[in-house]
């Protein structure tokens, strides 16, 4: 009988997993929120939007190649675009909403490839219109060909701020300043890793050249400490940060801008995998709470696999290899996963993944945040935007002994709102660690719904045909 595989997410990992599982004769259902495959990194514009792409040609070639491979099998899979998985259960059920109805899938195995979201460190004024994530600004450029601002300050850490600054410049925008917590030269401390990633590095250098040639003010060791404006962002105050993450007095610079795009690394979209009851661990550097997985992406729950950035930040190239490996492992009976045949078939991909992962070690060095940086959050700063909870309330709850994220939530409602804590929980975990010296050991209990769905759609539920 044909094995049924469900894949959640059509980014590099999800697409590669689908290609591999189809190749191995499985019946594949792929569920994705986007209108077109690609995920965040390989996001595609609507075909009617002609016009240039602003990414490096080599990156675009990678994107085209993977999307073409996926398009080649798309007729053989049940591909659900603009569909949302709102719950998964330990019994293996996947509940999804699409249009005005819902459906329950009961696959033999599921691959959760839900990627990452961006991380923000809240600071005074960060909720002003005009402040957004760097990746969000890039998405507007990629999908809608829209410049999110005329005069931008880009800030944060890791490679994304540089990439976004260069792409905005190429699209005709003006960059008032590019502020990076760490110089990308931090990567030089991992020379071996750099060799593994020399092709990617070359693309990075081209972006760097774009920014340098435009004469952009580049401030290393600086972060935004205040966003200034009435109805809309008008300026940002940047200041230098010392090794412990403290603001160095007297270093503040005020820069006029209408867009502040920030990125402090990424948080894994691991709520769905946690709902299956899979064992989780926390590593803030690569995405916060992550499923514990083995080489083949197996979680502690039989039949539940995780791949790509959602299983720990690893970049698009690793994610693509992951997809192939996990797609293969999910396609064979569980007894065959560790077997010699599969190992031999996957040896080349596993080795390639290891090389790409090696380069990620260098990238990670640029993403490390000193815990003290969270001192940017003042008592007045709104941390949970859905429920409008300021840090002062959270600090009081922590001080009166409510230490876990669940207990803090019950006290001040942080994480109870529309987004289910996707924006604030990583911040509260870090703030709790800073305030009490102890990081919370458990994530906030993930519950259905991962996304809100109307009663009417739930009432119109289609059950999977009996296998």
């Amino acid at each position, binding site marked *: 009988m044909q094995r049924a595989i469900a894949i959640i997410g059509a980014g590099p990992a999800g697409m590669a997993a689908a290609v591999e599982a189809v190749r191995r004769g499985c019946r594949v259902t792929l569920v994705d929120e986007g209108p077109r495959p690609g995920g965040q990194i390989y996001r595609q514009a609507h075909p009617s939007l002609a016009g240039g792409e602003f990414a490096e040609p080599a990156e675009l070639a990678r994107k085209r190649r993977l999307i073409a491979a996926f398009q080649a099998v798309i007729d053989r899979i049940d591909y659900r675009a603009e569909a949302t998985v709102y719950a998964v259960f330990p019994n293996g059920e996947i509940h999804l909403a699409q249009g005005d109805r819902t459906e*329950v899938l009961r696959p033999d195995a599921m691959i959760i490839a839900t990627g990452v979201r961006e991380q923000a460190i809240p600071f005074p004024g960060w909720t002003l219109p005009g402040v957004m994530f760097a990746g969000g600004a890039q998405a507007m450029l990629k999908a809608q060909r829209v410049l999110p601002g005329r005069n931008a300050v880009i800030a944060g850490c890791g490679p994304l701020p540089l990439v976004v600054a260069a792409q905005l410049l190429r699209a005709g925008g003006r960059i008032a300043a590019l502020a990076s917590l760490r110089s990308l030269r931090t990567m030089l401390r991992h020379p071996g890793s750099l060799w593994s990633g020399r092709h990617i590095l070359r693309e990075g250098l081209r972006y760097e050249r774009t920014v340098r040639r435009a004469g952009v003010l580049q401030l290393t060791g600086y972060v935004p400490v205040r966003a200034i404006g009435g109805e809309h962002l008008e300026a940002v105050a940047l200041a230098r940060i010392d090794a412990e993450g403290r603001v160095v007095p007297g270093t503040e610079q005020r820069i006029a801008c209408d867009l502040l795009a920030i990125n402090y690394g990424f948080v894994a979209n691991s709520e769905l995998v946690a709902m299956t009851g899979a064992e989780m661990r926390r590593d803030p550097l690569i995405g916060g709470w992550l499923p514990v997985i083995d080489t083949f992406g197996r979680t502690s729950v039989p039949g539940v696999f995780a791949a790509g950035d959602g299983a720990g930040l690893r970049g698009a190239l690793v994610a693509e290899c992951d997809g192939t490996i996990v797609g293969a492992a999910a396609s064979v009976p569980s007894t065959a996963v560790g077997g010699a045949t599969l190992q031999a078939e996957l040896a080349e991909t596993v080795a390639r993944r290891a090389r790409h992962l090696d380069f990620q070690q260098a990238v990670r060095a640029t993403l490390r945040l000193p815990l003290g940086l969270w001192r940017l959050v003042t008592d007045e700063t709104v941390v949970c935007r859905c429920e409008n909870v300021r840090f002062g309330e959270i600090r009081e709850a922590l001080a009166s002994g409510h230490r876990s994220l669940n207990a803090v939530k019950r006290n001040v409602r942080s994480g109870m709102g529309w987004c289910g804590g996707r924006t604030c929980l990583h911040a509260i975990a870090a703030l709790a660690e800073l305030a009490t010296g102890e990081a919370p050991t458990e994530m906030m209990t993930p519950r259905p719904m991962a996304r809100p769905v109307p009663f009417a759609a739930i*009432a119109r539920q289609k059950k999977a045909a009996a296998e």
Partner: protein
Amino acid sequence: MTKDKFDVLIIGAGAYGLSCAWWMAKRRAGARILVVDEGEFASGASGRNGAGFRMQWGLDLNIRLCQESTRFFETAAEQLDYPRGIELKQGGYLVLAHSEKALATLKGSLEVQHRYGVPSELLNPDDCVKMVPALGRNRLVGGTFCGKDGTISPFLLLDSLLKACRREKVDVRYGTRVEKLERNGGGFRAHVNTGSIEADKILLCTDWAVPELLASLGLNLPVKSLPKEAIVTVPCTPRVKPILISLEHHISVNQVSRGSIVFVVSRAREGKEIASTPDFLAFAAPKIIDLLPGVADVPVLRTWGGVSSLTPDMQPILGETEIEGLYVAVSSFRGLMTSPAVGRIMSALILENDTNDPVLTKLSPRRFRTGELIVEPLLNQE
């Protein structure tokens, strides 16, 4: 290993446990009172319920307990010195009947309520729909309404009680699980995960889990556990002003002040599982739409589960067990709304041996061996 000695050990830091502790501390300054809870703040049934309180019951004791408790909620911010308040909202409860049989039950209960001065009234279907335009007319035959019923925030009630207890020097310890109880001279010893605790008297406020602890002392009590599941929607325009209960749909509905609507949907089940079950939403959604077509378009934000206690007559069990000095307070799924009155009554019983309250005679644990049980009719439990 720590060894502590207390006048009273209360097991369970939910609404009953904390309320009893606070009343005891108020009643006798200097009393050494310890409250232990195996979980963390508000992690049990008191933090998982539908947040409502009502005086519309069919049995006099339930009415009396809730009348007294309602008066407490109205002044809780001052009494507990909690300026933030407990989000009290008295928008009324509308109890709906979708059959002539249910309507007869409502009418009978109304008579009892009026005997105690509860300001409840009978409504015809038009009145009901006028009050809640989102309501469906399918089979609706009428309802009763009491404008003094309402909701509080369970989290804020628990937090205000916790802070008030700690101000009165009550020791409240979370993450402390009682493994076993044993008699120790005239008192008791509790073996906990952090050591052992000695106390002259013990009050069990662990609700559905009371039988487990009693078993270690050779006692039994007919308390079952009943898992329930709840749904909360995203905030939406005001659609459901009073709280709704439908006896036949087995649903309660509460639109809280932030605009979210909370639904508690009961199913006949047994167990101690608090996780959301896979088939729950698909089970609940059609019932909810049948009851309230006006919410069909509202997105569900989250679901959660909780466990409540179920007693044979669906009334609380309050009083001393066959073992002297060992007390129980089991809510039978209305712990939050009766907690102030129960705290007062139990504190008087335990500290002053005050057994005069008629509640104690009728709701004592002994009633299951003697006498006839009278079942509360106004329940939306399947």
